[in-house]
């Protein structure tokens, strides 16, 4: 990916890269744990996505700032330190501003530390690129994650509870399985297939090989 620094940087491409070509969940199949664990209601899914968007952007920024000072041999521990620092920020702000949601999913917010997608972007992109492209890459990846979690939790809450964001929408008997873990696997699998089908048929984005 280092050619971005040499040639003129296409910021739009950097943004869409994270959303479509290298969508963390639908394309790379990374960070599937939160995609199943927190997506049983739309609100949780969106909040989680926003938290990841924030952490991803800030981590990419910080790593990119520090990229010339990090010794390659100890880069992973340093990435982890930076990530956990920003996760703590996200965690505490959420505890302060969204108390109710935090009670339900606080544990998962702390688990962002261990998300493969965030460490992967720090290692593959931010540590090799300048600040602005790194930030755009972080926003793109975060938006892709937010998009995936929103879609999954939209369908799961609609089918499993007949509601959206806690408000009842349809009045039929809900499919209970969709808000249970088994339904999470089903939803992720089916949506992943659908996303890749649409991509293959209409968007035709090439899979990027590093």
């Amino acid at each position, binding site marked *: 990916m280092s050619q971005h620094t040499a040639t003129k940087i296409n910021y739009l491409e950097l943004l869409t890269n994270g959303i479509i070509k290298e969508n963390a969940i639908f394309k790379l199949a990374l960070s599937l744990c939160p995609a199943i664990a927190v997506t049983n209601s739309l609100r949780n899914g969106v909040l989680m996505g926003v938290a990841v968007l924030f952490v991803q952007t800030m981590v990419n920024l910080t790593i990119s700032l520090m990229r010339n000072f990090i010794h390659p041999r100890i880069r992973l521990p340093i990435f982890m330190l930076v990530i956990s620092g920003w996760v703590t920020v996200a965690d505490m702000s959420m505890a302060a501003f969204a108390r109710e949601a935090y009670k339900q999913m606080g544990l998962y917010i702390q688990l962002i530390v261990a998300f493969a997608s965030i460490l992967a972007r720090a290692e593959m992109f931010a540590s090799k690129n300048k600040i602005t492209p790194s930030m755009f890459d972080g926003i793109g990846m975060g938006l892709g994650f937010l998009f995936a979690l929103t879609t999954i939790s939209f369908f799961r809450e609609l089918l499993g509870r007949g509601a959206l964001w806690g408000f009842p929408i349809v009045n039929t*008997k809900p*499919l*209970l*399985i*969709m808000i*249970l873990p*088994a339904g999470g696997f*089903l939803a992720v699998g*089916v949506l992943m*297939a659908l996303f890749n089908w649409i991509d293959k048929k209409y968007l035709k984005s090439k899979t990027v090989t590093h």
Partner: protein
Amino acid sequence: MAEIKKEHQLTVSVSPHVKSEETTSRIMWSVNLSLLPAALIGAYFFGPRAVFALTIAIITAVLCEHLYQRGMKSKITINDGSAFLTGLLVGLNLPPSVPFYIPVIGSFVAIVITKQLFGGLGFNVFNPAAAGRAFLLISFPKLMTIWKEPTAAFVQMDAKTTATPLGILKEEGIAKLMEVFGDKTNLYTELFMGHRAGSIGETSTLALLIGAAFLFYRGYISWHIPVSFMGTAAAMAWVFGGKGALFAGDPIIHLISGGMILGAFFMATDYVTCPSVKKGQLIFGAGCGFLTMLIRLKGGYPEGVMFAILIMNCFTPIIDRGFKTKVFGFKKPDSKETKK
């Protein structure tokens, strides 16, 4: 191979060269036929509602297959009877008095999600009917456990709800079961004939055995899976089924109640989702029996046949790999490197 009908046409192809009359559709329709007695008994005991549920399940299954294959622009194979069979099995696994959307959802999940999304007949990992029923049971725990008392229901319409024999056995023990059915001989006969509460097609052991005998006669299923399945389950029921003491359980009740017969003969033996090697089939059946009894005796559900089959479906590829048959004349090489 069946398309080539000209007498003197020379075809060059890889083996096998032996042709027979057996085709996928012939086998599938035979299995459908073999389930007919069970469906008829279910219709007799549970009445129009059961027939209604069966019909809806079959129509939805065939329709889903047709629409999906048309949407994907692939060859439409609804005439081979496999979608019909899946729909029939989903229907037979339902409680008699379900509302109309239950079989619709069940058949949809079975055909579209479990079968077609994985590539259609021959590529599905899980038994479609079992997966459909598992989806329904988890989604609608209340609706899927309303059991009707069997009556000759075309004559008298109002039916009482009751518990299945396994439900009674689980909740209240064997003494209560005896109380409901009278003495032991009566209990066995009622269970064997199918005069008990349960899913539409699972109640009558007799009808299912007639169908299974037909399949054995035609050579469509082998004894390996049913025997190891039911043998393991019976042994587990005998050893651990009793209250307090070992070796005090009643294996016969466990064999002829619940979906054991239907599962062992018609669902676990599905060609696509069971191992194709005989030794592997023995392991597969034993695993099914073990898991079934584990769920029945220790789990939260009174019945576990379908979950056991689904879990063992996951192991099918590993079992197949472990019992790969040797090529004729092949000698085990000395060094490990010659492995392909």
